[in-house]
């Protein structure tokens, strides 16, 4: 009898050991849509601002653009009113499996075009200027924010060295020195090939543990002789660091039972989003024997 009982229990376990994950219907509470702004000022570049609306989580995939808004950026006594532009996405054949490139993934969200507000006058290389943003939507919502651009932090050097375990693979080190007199925040990006390729590394960090010291940031052993590796160190402000960290934390909170829920930390009032400016220094390293 015991033997039969044991095999019965074992059988039940094997039969039931599947479908631990299942789709469910959720009645989410009503979510009131908000305007969401993103604008990243870069010296020498035109001002580009995205203005969309947040939606309920299970709503349609499509991004809802906030068209017809008045977008004004004031600096040094000048008011720039941004104009709206729509950029058509290039046609890509997505019928073949595995042909999901960046635009193909973008298309279900944005449709056939991207929509931005643009100021064609390039941003000046003036690190004391206060930039003030004012957005008024057609329905009268008002979003305001202000920011300053920080000077670039130069990369001291980049180096590469071979793996001890696999001779043909190399890693790259990027070194730069932090200013110990201020709290600083950085975004570090590594790309293989050129600046248009998907980043191999892309993360933000602060100087809390390395204030005033040299940062040495490494990569994986991903590179071979002949590869070009692009290192970019962005000098970002605290607002953008907080926004970016909170965005990462929100994404993680959705996926992990152990993560604390996090709210997006915006620096705009009257909506969600980020109005910031940054500079960067960039080096190219070609791996050689």
């Amino acid at each position, binding site marked *: 009898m015991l033997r039969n009982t044991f095999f019965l229990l074992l059988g039940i376990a094997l039969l039931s050991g599947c479908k631990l994950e299942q789709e469910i219907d959720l009645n989410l509470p009503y979510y009131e*849509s908000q305007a969401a702004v993103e604008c990243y000022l870069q010296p020498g570049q035109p001002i580009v601002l995205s203005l969309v609306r947040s939606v309920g989580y299970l709503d349609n995939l499509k991004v809802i653009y906030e068209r017809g808004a008045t977008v004004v950026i004031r600096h040094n006594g000048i008011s720039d009113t941004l104009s709206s532009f729509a950029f058509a996405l290039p046609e890509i054949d997505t019928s073949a499996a595995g042909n999901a490139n960046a635009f193909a993934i973008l298309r279900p969200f944005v449709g056939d075009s*991207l929509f*931005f507000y643009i100021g064609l006058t390039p941003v000046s290389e003036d690190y004391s200027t206060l930039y003030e943003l004012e957005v008024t939507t057609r329905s009268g919502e008002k979003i305001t924010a202000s920011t300053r651009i920080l000077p670039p932090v130069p990369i001291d050097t980049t180096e590469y060295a071979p793996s001890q375990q696999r001779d043909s693979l190399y890693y790259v080190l990027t070194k730069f020195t932090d200013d110990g007199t201020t709290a600083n925040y950085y975004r570090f990006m590594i790309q293989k090939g050129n600046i248009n390729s998907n980043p191999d590394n892309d993360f933000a960090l602060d100087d809390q543990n390395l204030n005033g010291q040299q940062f040495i940031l490494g990569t994986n052993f991903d590179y071979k002789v002949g590869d070009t590796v692009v290192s970019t160190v962005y000098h970002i402000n605290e607002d953008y660091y907080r926004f970016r960290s909170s965005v990462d934390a929100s994404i993680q909170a959705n996926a992990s039972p152990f993560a604390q*829920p*996090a709210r997006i*930390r915006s620096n705009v009032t009257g909506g969600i989003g980020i109005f910031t400016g940054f500079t960067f220094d960039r080096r190219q390293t070609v791996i050689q024997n």
Partner: protein
Amino acid sequence: MRHIFVYFSFLCLAPSLFSQNTIILSGYIKSAETGEALIGATVTAQAVGKGTYTNEYGFYSLSLPNSGDSIAVKYSYVGFAAQLKKAIWKENVRMDIQLEVADATLETVEITAEGFQQRLKSTEMGIERISMQDAKLLPALFGEVDIIKTLQLKPGVSSGSEGSSGIYVRGGGPDQNLFLLDGTTVYNPSHLFGFFSTFNSDAVKDVKLYKAGFPAQYGGFLSSVVDVRMNEGNSNKFHVKGGLGLIASRLTFEGPIAKNKASFLISGRRTYVDVFTRLINEANADNKAFNPIPDYYFSDLNGKVNWTISDKDQIFLSGYTGRDRFTFRNQDIRFNFDWGNTTGSLRWNHIFNSRLFLNSSLGFTKYDYTIKNKFDIFEFELGSSIRDYALKTEFSYLPSANHYIRFGASAIYHKFGVGRVNVGSSDSTFNFSAGNDYFATEMGVFAGDEWTVNDKIKVNGGFRWSGFVQENTFYNNFEPRLAANITLSKSVSLKASYARMAQYLHLVSSSGTTLPTDVWYPSTKLVRPQKSDQLSTGVTWLLNKNWLFSTEVYYKWLHNQIDFKDGANLFVNDNLDKEFVFGSGYTYGSEFYLEKQSGRLTGWIGYTLSWSWRRFIGQQADGTIDPLLAINDGALFHPRNDRRHDVTVVGIYQMSKRLSLSASWQYRTGNAVSLAVGRVPVFGPELVFVQPVPIFLDRNSYRMPAYHKLDLGFVIRFFPKWGASDLTISAYNAYNRRNPYFLYFETVTNDSGVPTNFKAKQVALFPIIPSVTYNFSF
């Protein structure tokens, strides 16, 4: 110092307080079979209406009137045959008792009734006691008997999530429970990310959980005290017991070193899943498509030696070490993650005289975790630790028949290693270190008196003064404790209690549950101690000899509660205290408990109705308030473990001497969780990628579906010539309920990897899990 002087003055005066109209019976009550001291055994002199019970060391002291009449004194303990001693007691008597194991059911009923009477008249409130015998009969996950999970079946105690051995008591946090093993703190009482507790059931003698009305000798944590006492070792004969389970095996060896003078116990447990995963990895060594399975195991080792030096002196040396080890290796990476506790204590029990008993101990405890990762020329090491050296002295004193006084003092030296990290490369290209060590001293002085005012009223009043020194910062708290029992009739009593608790250690955990990487952090100049005040009142009703009903209502205020800023860096941060935010909370509820302890069918039904709230308005360590750091916009919210309804039904049916059946059914309101309600596309600086980012609004405003499951157990006992054995068969989650472990949103993509829509998903952890364990002893 002044307090210590007062104590010793008190001791010197003790003989003068001695009343010539009473005589004292005192001594140890032990098992005749094993020589183990029996905790909570009752001693009653019914004719004169006096009674007491043994303390956690098996010692009792009973005052009797010196009347010249013959008085019968009964010694009893559940599972043992009672003994009656009748005499004309003329002078103080040392009466050590050895009780024989009983079989008679009728007698068991009588003894159970005495145990119920004791609970009826006691001032103790919010106490749960686990019988190791019951714990071993109840069904368990993977067949691993777990005393903490048995505690979770009691009202007011809940687990954080499926299968977890962490406890949340009366709305408190998982870091607000004091776990004591032979009087020494165990900082992380769980294995395998919380699925199993560190307490090996073969080595445990007694478990007591305090949820309220904390006696003055306990302090340092807000919500509960789990006092676990280890077996001392059979002092009469050598004895071996063990078990072979689905995932782990146990072996215990105990016996006399010098008969009736000294004994030892050594008990070990180890999981062996890694043995099989290694074999699988080796078999697939040539298969390049195969991903090696990481090695994982945990092990425990308990040891204890006790030595009776004289009639008045006993020394105990006990220790525990347990470790979890997780290893992953392939040709590029070597990753090791291990964590565990080590505790040790040296205890001296001394009987000064029949009225005064001393327990003094030196203790050591350590919890640490280490993560080591080697990747090519790079090495990374991260770890944290807490280490305590403790000294505690406690006296039990009976100045008269109506007073039972406990007083003493304790001091703990804490050493914290917080977020110690080393990153470097073997070619010395770079090297980085961070982390801090903190040192602190925690002290306590306490006194409490259980005063029998008259036949109907008993009061237990006391206080604890606690202090904490960290660098130049000093905190201290006066913690009054008060409990009272009014016996309304022979079967009904009314109880009430109040307790203030202070907690100087804080668990840095952003996960909402306990993980091995959580860090203990001291109160500092910026981080103030947590405090709580709890009021509790209840009724105990002895329905008959078999059934006891009790109900309690409580309200608990929580002050200086701790949470962390969104996105806080809790691993490598030399200014960790700047990541804290401070708030408050309160919890309230009522518990109902119906218990049957004798007969073929035993068990209990428990129901808890409760609410738990927290508020964080964005107060930072320096006292400033930043509304951006407020949780839930500074409004009240439920913590994750807030449970409106919690029902447990537990039954053990003794079919025959050979067979017993058990079942436990649990129902509880689902966890309060935060779900993203909105979504915003974030393009990033390049403005050509889009990331759907979830928007969370109100904290923990969504309820997961209710949790319920049935566990079944079946024990078949064998009586071979060489000893005894049993086969324990259990089915965890017998009706295969898919209890949600967590919910998340998934981006659905087509075959080309292009997103199409979003859907909500629920993940369950355990389906029905049958298990078989073979236990033996000889």
